[in-house]
């Protein structure tokens, strides 16, 4: 099936597939260390208050309990800095003064078994003097109380602002005042849960003065650096290993429970495993709920002259990735149109709720929900087909996504046309049905970062590829083996990817922002090319002439059909007896790829590429119940080059299926700050039956125009961006109601239909 030396773009089975279908794949939650203890957390039932006392006596008395830890123990445990985060280090290992959300961990019990720990945790009594909780962003901005009283608000628009960003060009107010038509609306996006199937898990063990951590994290080197800083260690004293991860989607970025588990292991003087329940992961991190107020002005010819956007993101009780999410919300709000006058403001606002962080697409789904809904409504107002309107106004290749950033690297109109074709755009929808589409663009690859990779060709012709990429399901390791196989001209099945271990893996920033294939992939390719070069030079030294060859098992097969055993060549070249094959060692290369830096780029780092997701939907609306059924959906991802097309398509389809959740039914519901539906009985996730009736269409646009290996761009987020606005437009086309709040659940659609029929419409 796979031709040697031609593995790129082929249906190469994933290297992790065998382990995953046999149940042998090890995840953090599967691992047990000798003498290991188990931790259970005590979580606050109060949304906001001052801790007056934590009574641990009863829990400590339980047979099998090793220790109980609270925030007061941190100094004694030698914690140098108890706070962590991205840019705002506001999250304590365990708080010893304020509780800031219902569900926040305030104490931990370590015991011989998870069951004992869990039972003892229920005996810990936490006394809290309540403080008025800030339950909505509006309340928080007014600021009757402060979630982090020690911090200044980051913006002048109100209190409790964790981070504030603004990008602007031209004179937006004047342009709006002079516009022929101004579309204005407020769009709401719900707070939703990542629900990675494997809850957060961490195992920590102190070996003398060194620290060994096994965690389901997307960012092992960030965790290493946090742990070194917080516990006063050198980085080389901290080892973080990442087995297979049962889903991430952004929810396992930064440090989560690793610092706490390390503190527990210190106190217990034994290895500690902290494995959350799914309900606890619900109370750990989420996607920012948001309110986007947007005004878009067009001239008499329909050209967009101005866009003013204000994004308020509910970042919950701790900033986590909120500052980054806010920055990118402001950056991406203008959208993929040439708009001379714009102002985009975004802020992450603290509330007394579950923290919000990175989630597939970052803030792009939130701002595209607003921006593309607005474009659909403007086209409608002007009486122009929304596909035609975008044909006329979408950025062309080479246009400015943002001033002074990388020029647009994609054929947006061509991609959108593919999506439209998927739902047979030109054919009018039957009665009761409607069609809609949208285009979403995010700058891809993340901010400044380094990616490294090591490739080793072993004397038996097999190879290893080492990176710091966590295998969270995305398939990056499949792609790396294919890149190595392509460059070494060998069978990808003979290349083994190694999972991250900070003690041995080359450095990587982390598994996020669709950066792995492009940035780490470039490093892998460079390393593989260098190994291939070294091999070629060796052949030239030994045979006196440069020859083309492929690697077949343990032999080199030359272009004239002759062959040679690799180990024999290496032995001759290295002056070792061939009988000592194991002495030969590998042919090895370590390479790196750094992101570009440009003083002119608004973000400091020009966009590595643009991640483009187009979506087109056909829906059926049941006017009696308000139920919207997805009949067809086509997601088009502009991936430059699909290195493993099946894995790439699966990622994009998975993203689109995730979007079914926030588009139709997912929403974390709070009452007085308490999460009401933080479990799978009450929080519904997309199922197989939720696939569009006629199937999910995924098209990969491959123009080989990306900066990654073989022209690849990043993938895996595009599919989540455009569904909501495409579906909302389809709903409007089907039944005439405009809805600006997600999810489009039956109650909401039914109510909108009812309001539309009871109120006299405009005529």
């Amino acid at each position: 099936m796979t031709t040697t030396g031609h593995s790129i773009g082929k249906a190469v089975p994933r290297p992790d597939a065998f382990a995953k279908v046999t149940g042998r794949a090890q995840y953090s939650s599967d691992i047990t260390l000798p003498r290991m203890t188990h931790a259970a957390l005590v979580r606050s039932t109060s949304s906001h208050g001052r801790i007056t006392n934590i009574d641990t006596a009863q829990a400590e008395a339980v047979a099998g309990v090793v220790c109980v830890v609270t925030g007061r123990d941190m100094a004694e445990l030698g914690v140098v800095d108890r706070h962590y985060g991205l840019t705002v280090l506001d999250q304590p290992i365990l708080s010893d003064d304020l509780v800031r959300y219902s569900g926040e961990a305030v104490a931990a019990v370590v015991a011989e078994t998870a069951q004992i720990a869990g039972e003892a945790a229920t005996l810990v009594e936490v006394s809290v003097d309540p403080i008025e909780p800030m339950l909505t962003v509006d309340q928080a901005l007014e600021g009757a109380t402060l979630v982090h009283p020690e911090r200044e608000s980051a913006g002048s628009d109100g209190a409790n602002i964790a981070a504030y960003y603004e990008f602007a060009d031209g004179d937006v107010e004047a342009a709006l005042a002079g516009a022929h038509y101004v579309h204005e609306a407020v769009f709401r996006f719900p707070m939703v849960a990542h629900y990675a199937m494997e809850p957060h898990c961490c195992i920590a063990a102190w070996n003398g003065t060194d620290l060994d951590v096994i965690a389901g994290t997307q960012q092992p080197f960030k965790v290493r650096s946090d742990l070194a800083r917080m516990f006063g260690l050198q980085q080389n004293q901290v080892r973080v290993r990442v087995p297979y991860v049962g889903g991430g989607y952004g929810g396992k970025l930064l440090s989560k429970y690793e610092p706490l588990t390390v503190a527990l292991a210190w106190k217990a003087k034994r290895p500690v495993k902290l494995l959350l329940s799914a309900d606890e992961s619900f109370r750990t991190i989420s996607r920012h709920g948001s309110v986007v107020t947007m005004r878009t002005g067009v001239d008499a010819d329909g050209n967009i002259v101005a866009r003013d956007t204000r994004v308020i993101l509910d970042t919950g009780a701790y900033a986590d990735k909120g500052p980054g999410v806010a920055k990118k919300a402001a950056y991406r709000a203008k959208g993929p149109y040439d708009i001379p006058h714009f102002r985009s403001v975004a802020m992450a606002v603290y509330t007394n709720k579950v923290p919000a962080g990175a989630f597939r697409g970052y803030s792009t789904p939130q701002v595209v929900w607003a921006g593309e809904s607005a474009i659909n409504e403007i086209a409608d107002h002007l009486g122009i087909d929304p596909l035609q309107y975008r044909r006329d106004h979408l950025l062309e290749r080479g246009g400015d996504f943002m001033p002074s950033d990388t020029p647009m690297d994609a054929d947006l109109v061509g991609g959108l046309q593919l999506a439209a074709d998927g739902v047979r755009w030109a054919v009018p929808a039957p009665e009761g049905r409607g069609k809609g589409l949208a285009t979403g663009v995010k700058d891809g690859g993340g901010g400044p970062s380094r990616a490294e990779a090591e490739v080793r060709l072993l004397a038996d012709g097999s190879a290893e590829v080492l990176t710091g990429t966590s295998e969270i399901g995305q398939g990056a390791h499949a792609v790396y083996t294919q890149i190595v196989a392509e460059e070494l001209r060998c069978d990808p099945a003979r290349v083994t990817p190694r999972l991250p271990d900070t003690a041995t893996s080359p450095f990587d920033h982390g598994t996020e922002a669709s950066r792995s294939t492009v940035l780490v992939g470039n490093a892998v390719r460079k390393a593989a090319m260098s190994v291939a070069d070294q091999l070629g030079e060796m052949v030239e030294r030994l045979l006196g002439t440069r020859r083309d060859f492929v690697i077949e098992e343990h032999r080199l097969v030359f272009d004239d059909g002759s062959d040679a055993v690799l180990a024999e060549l290496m032995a001759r070249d290295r002056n070792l007896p061939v009988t000592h094959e194991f002495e030969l060692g590998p042919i090895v290369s370590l390479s790196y790829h750094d992101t570009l830096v440009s003083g002119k780029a608004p973000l400091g780092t020009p966009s590595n590429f643009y991640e483009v997701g187009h979506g087109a939907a056909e829906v059926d609306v049941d006017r009696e119940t308000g139920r919207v059924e997805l009949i067809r959906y086509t997601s088009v991802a502009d991936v430059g080059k699909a290195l493993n097309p099946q894995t790439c398509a699966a990622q994009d389809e998975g993203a689109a299926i995730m979007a079914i959740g926030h588009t139709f039914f997912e929403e974390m519901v709070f009452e007085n700050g308490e999460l009401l539906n933080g479990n799978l009985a009450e929080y519904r996730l997309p199922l197989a039956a939720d696939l569009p009736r006629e199937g999910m269409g995924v098209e990969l646009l491959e123009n080989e125009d990306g900066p990654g290996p073989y022209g690849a761009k990043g993938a895996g987020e595009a599919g989540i961006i455009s569904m909501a606005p495409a579906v909302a437009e389809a709903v409007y086309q089907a039944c005439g109601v405009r809805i600006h709040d997600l999810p489009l659940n039956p109650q909401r659609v039914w109510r909108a239909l009812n309001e539309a029929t009871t109120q006299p419409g405009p005529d």
Partner: protein
Amino acid sequence: MLGKDDRIEITVTVNGESQVVDVASSDLLIDVLREQLHLTGTKRSCDLQICGTCTVLVDGKAVSSCTTLAVETENREVRTVEGLADGETLHPLQQAFIDEFASQCGFCTPGFLMTAFALLDEVSRPTPEEVHRYLEGNVCRCGSYTNILNAIERAQPTTER
């Protein structure tokens, strides 16, 4: 009636091997499999019999091991994902999951495999509706559904009983 902490020895056949395990009457099957028998292929997620990631077969029927008491399996046959392959020879469903790229993070894979096994055992050529109904109790957050459905389809002609 046993109290929740009373311990009892039960005999249960797991993947064809008879095992004697010492369990508390409140112990869940998933914990006995994962912790006592070290069969960690069976995964835990929701704890509520909803996500299906902990699905195993008890006497050939798919059940959620997170809500099944270990004592209920006394003298019965339990089959887990580790018991699907015949040595290193994969079951056709497993091979189909590989060929159709049906695993991404793979955490849901064991549960889907066991559910699909029970389905094909019951109905050798299920209609799409029957497949959807069977899969209502299995969640794949990575959204691999299309590939999983294709894998189940691909495995059909040769699925052995």
